[in-house]
């Protein structure tokens, strides 16, 4: 049985359709008009225990709304959600023990308390025993380096510190499912790396993770499953590697040769690849489809012509692929198996 299951999940927001200023507000009082915004549109999603899922989409696609629906914060307009077979509103208390939620732009720390005390309050809220609590804290500390921030008062934390503390807060009760909504937003690179390492560590421990981000670098190397949402609809749900295989087949081999070699000679020895000169006449870029030739074959072919000083292979990131999907340049025609 999937641990998270959503069927035909839909959320429609009613926004008051008000004219500007006070006049608009007063008029609205008498002639109430609303504009409906379908934020999430008949989503079907099921996540198995232990799965790591990346949930991506451009801004305003409906990612956060989905997370709020899946955690029982919002009541769906249509459709339903089951967490471990439970109804998130009717069984709110039980469900709360099984899920952890992090919203990158919100904190669940107590503003006026040191982080250590905030975490202790959460420990008591969730009824975690002291030994387990200490063990978890020690484990989080290995990756998140909490030590230095435990004595700091909530409101004095820097953004990076706050996010690290909030990650610990979202996981202190050992939830079976965690939703991380934009967990790296606004962080500098060093903190991002640490936080990403933390995602991997909780995934490796078997926690089901749904990671929502518009920073696609977050998902690289994190999960096998990719779900893409756009305008409230799931437009792709399938294997991340499969997407890369299909849409990120291009490789670029950058080589530096000892002496200049005529382009025609290079092209003749590498049929099926595109060869271009780069910034100097001893540097070349070879673009090829990795299903037509391997990087090894390309290097061997070039080495037969001249001495190679240096070479490097670039693969397009999943980022490039998904960006092309967003822009409509690429259409992922079939959504993967709906598990």
């Amino acid at each position, binding site marked *: 049985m999937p641990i998270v299951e959503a069927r035909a999940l839909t959320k429609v927001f009613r926004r008051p359709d008000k004219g500007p200023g006070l006049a608009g507000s007063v008029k609205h009082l008498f002639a109430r008009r609303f504009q409906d915004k379908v934020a999430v549109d008949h989503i079907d999603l099921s996540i198995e225990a232990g799965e790591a899922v990346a949930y991506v989409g451009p801004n305003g696609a409906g990612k956060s709304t989905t997370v709020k629906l899946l955690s029982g*914060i*919002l009541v769906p307009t249509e459709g339903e959600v089951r967490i471990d077979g439970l109804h998130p509103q009717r069984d709110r*208390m039980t469900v709360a023990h099984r899920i952890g*939620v992090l*919203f990158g*732009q919100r904190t669940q720390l107590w503003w*006026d308390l040191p982080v250590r005390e905030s975490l202790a*309050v959460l420990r*008591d*809220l969730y009824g975690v025993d002291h030994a387990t609590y200490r063990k978890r804290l020690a484990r989080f500390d290995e990756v998140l380096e909490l030590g230095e921030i435990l004595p700091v008062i909530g409101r004095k934390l820097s953004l990076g510190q706050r996010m690290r503390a909030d990650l610990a807060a979202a996981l202190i009760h050992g939830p079976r499912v965690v939703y991380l909504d934009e967990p790296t937003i606004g962080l500098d690179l060093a903190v991002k790396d640490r936080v990403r390492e933390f995602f991997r560590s909780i995934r490796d421990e078997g926690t089901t993770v749904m990671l929502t981000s518009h920073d696609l670098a977050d998902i690289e190397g994190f999960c096998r499953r990719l779900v893409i949402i756009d305008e409230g609809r799931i437009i792709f749900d399938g294997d991340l590697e499969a997407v890369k295989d299909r849409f990120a087949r291009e490789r670029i081999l950058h080589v530096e040769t000892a002496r200049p070699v005529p382009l025609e000679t290079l092209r003749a020895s590498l049929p099926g690849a595109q060869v271009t000169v780069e910034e100097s006449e001893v540097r070349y870029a070879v673009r090829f489809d990795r299903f037509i030739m391997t990087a090894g074959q390309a290097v061997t072919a070039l080495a037969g012509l001249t001495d190679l000083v240096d070479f490097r292979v670039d693969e397009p990131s999943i980022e490039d692929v998904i960006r092309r999907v967003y822009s409509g340049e690429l259409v992922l025609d079939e959504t993967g198996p709906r598990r």
Partner: protein
Amino acid sequence: MRAYRALARATARSALTYRLNLLLGLGTVFVQLVALLAVWRVILAQSSVNGFTWPQMRVYLLVAFAAGTVVSAFGDFRMAFRILDGDVALDLVKPVDYQKARFAETIGGLWIEVLLIGVVVGVTLAVTGGVRTPAGPALALFVVSMLLLVPLKFLIVYGSTLLCFWTQNFIGVQWARLAVMNLLSGALIPLAYLPGWLATVAQWSPFAGLTSTPALIFLGRVDVRHGLTLVAVQLGWVLLLWFGARLMWRAGLRRLTVNGG
């Protein structure tokens, strides 16, 4: 239980952060109290009005001050802000009952309010002379009434703060609540001074329990039997509002939208 104790403790600790604010607040309420005392002293100098003599009014104002200070410093602003800002989303994924959790926080903030009352009442008594405490049964009834005042006031504040789900605005709600509360509780003037029909409405409203009931019992202006009725009314409202607020909360949740992340 452990969860709610932890929440109460958290507020009790955070309250310390605001000791400077509270000290400033203390100054303000003290000045207010002194002003009220001075005004009534002049009004009642010659003769009693509506049955209140000056010594009685002095005690009434002190009890009213104590009753007004309890459950006043914490909670409502934070809760309203969390609803309006959407942070309430995070409260919803905690394994605690929302209403009980907020009540626990209110209890946690009580100690500093009680301390404040102790200081102000102590100083006032030292300057203007002691008071006669009522006899055993009336005193016990007074204590019960003061204890009931805590959940009663919490529920009135909590219920009105829940209105933020509908109004999307807190200041208006708060002003309206303060106005009604001040008038109908007898905090500004004893209910006996209101026009007859309004006094009757006030007496049976939940607001009387916020000031009038404990003050009248302490003063002995009602006998123990009448006092029991008033306390029973307090209790009745606590129960009614407790369950009423739950319905409101459930209705409010359906309106919750939580903008942004």
